[in-house]
């Protein structure tokens, strides 16, 4: 049985009438210990997809389940690493992680918890900064704290929502390697979302493109059989890497070319009706209520090919 399974899920937002469908026909199954990366354009519904798994968002149709149990709400068995780190700024590195650990391992002794926290801070190489506040750390360090916080909950699956996209290219490369190393040692299941095809192929066992049709849907998955640990310098000349990369990018680009976007245009008409001169009577002061408002909005659906 797969660890995570999504069947025929779809999701849209907004009220009826102005509704925009984000995801359609989502089918995904992830085995235990797998490192899956989902690649897609910005704004194509990647975060919504990962929130279906984390439980922050519920699918409109279809189902999402973990180990066969339907996902109804967020829980510590699915550790979510946020794009913007989401560390609580009034807590130190240690306290941020402690918040998670104290909640998940309530029955542990306090020494056990302390050791567990220290272990995870050390794992992301931040022991020297354990008592610093998030604002005293660089972006890369903050994201490492966020990863440590999530791993410290011992989740069954690690969900990463564009974890590195707010970082500069160099820090990004370093963290990619670090997270890949941690995965090699831990073998936790990872579902990683990114908009960078290179990053995807570099870290993943399996890459799934999120095709930017409207609503978006998952493409065919691409297995990455490049041996680990992968050397970031050597891999650039690896023919397999080049082939996968070309394949992935073509898939994404092609589906974008075919894509038709339906867009709702709001046409706001001029908001004032001309005054009816004949209706003005002698009680001018009372009866004149100023220009009449039309307050009308027309909806028009326009098809645009992107």
């Amino acid at each position, binding site marked *: 049985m797969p660890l995570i399974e999504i069947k025929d899920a779809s999701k849209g937002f907004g009220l009826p009438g102005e509704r925009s469908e984000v995801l359609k026909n989502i089918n995904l199954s992830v085995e235990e210990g797998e490192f899956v990366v989902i690649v897609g354009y910005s704004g194509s519904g990647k975060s919504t997809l990962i929130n279906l798994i984390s439980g922050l968002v519920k699918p409109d149709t279809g189902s999402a389940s973990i180990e066969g149990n339907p996902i109804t709400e967020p829980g510590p068995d699915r550790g979510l690493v946020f794009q913007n780190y989401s560390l609580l700024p009034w807590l130190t590195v240690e306290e941020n992680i402690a918040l998670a650990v104290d*909640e998940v391992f309530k029955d542990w002794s306090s020494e056990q918890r302390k050791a567990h926290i220290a272990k995870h801070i050390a794992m992301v190489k931040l022991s020297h900064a354990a008592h610093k506040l998030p604002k005293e750390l660089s972006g890369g360090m903050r994201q490492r704290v966020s990863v440590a916080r999530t791993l410290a909950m011992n989740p069954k699956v690690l969900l990463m929502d564009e974890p590195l996209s707010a970082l500069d290219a160099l820090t990004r490369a370093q963290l990619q390697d670090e997270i890949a190393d941690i995965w090699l040692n831990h073998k936790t299941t990872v579902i990683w979302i990114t908009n960078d095809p290179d990053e995807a192929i570099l870290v993943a066992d399996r890459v799934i493109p999120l095709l930017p049709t409207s609503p978006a849907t998952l493409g065919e998955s691409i297995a990455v059989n490049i041996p680990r640990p992968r050397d970031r310098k050597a891999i650039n000349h690896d023919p397999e890497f080049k082939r996968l990369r070309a394949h992935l990018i073509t898939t994404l680009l092609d589906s974008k070319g075919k894509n038709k976007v339906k867009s709702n245009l709001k046409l706001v008409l001029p908001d004032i009706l001309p005054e009816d001169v004949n209706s003005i009577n002698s009680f001018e002061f009372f009866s004149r209520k100023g220009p009449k408002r039309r307050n009308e909005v027309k909806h028009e659906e326009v098809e645009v090919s992107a």
Partner: protein
Amino acid sequence: MHLIQRYKLDAIFLPIVAILVCCLLWYLIAGKSTITTKKDDWGDTVKVTKREGISADLPTPVETWTASKLYITEPFAKRGELDQGILRFTWMSLVLVAQGYFLALVIGTPIGFFLGLSKKFTMAFDPLIQVLRPVSPLAWLPLGMILFSGVKVVNGDGRTTFGASDAAALFTIAICAMWPTVMNTAVGVRAVPQDYLNVAKVLKLSKNKTLWKVLVPATLPYMFTGFRLSLGIAWLVIVAVEMLTGRPGIGGFLWQQYNANSYAHIILCILTIGVIGYVLDRLMSVIEARFKTA
């Protein structure tokens, strides 16, 4: 360097100029007394003081200073129940304000949290709050008197230590000073970033823990802005409250001196109230700055 020196000099020099200009204007419209001697009907020589000016009863700056000197140079003296040093009066007012203000925070902050957390609560109570918010302290005080007419705490000697007027005073300060705390807390709670709430959800924090570990710290900066504004209002209200209840304090002193025709002391009181208000505001903004997170 030159620029900084000039800026600092200006920061001291310009306010002094402004104060002097105001004093000059004050002097110009104030009444000036002329003392003449004349023989009355009995043949005795008497002094006649005549005040003239745009506002004849307004004392000049110098007269104000002479009349107020004693109150300022002996700020803690107690010469009688209604004749005390200016800081002694201020202290009495501050104690009352502190009590009322404390009540306002204790009541206002939870209300703010409820408003921020629950849409239904907001829908239910927002109209009520918007209507009660602009009501003047002068209007609340009589209601307080009626509400707490039965309150009477008597000490061993049979003297009332806490009566209806004290309760009404506290009630008035609390209910007037509460609103900025309520509104700012509510806004702060609504402004808590969704990310933080998501963290709480993903970690499955209990309601209690979410409140104390996430919501309260995230709202603190807003709460303290509310607290600062509330303190300003509490200090505003004190004068009205003391005038109406006749409690001794800076506002009571002001009203009593007006009734006693000693107008110079009114100006002393106004200036004192202003300075204390300013100091309180500065103190609160220092505390507020300490609680700015992120």
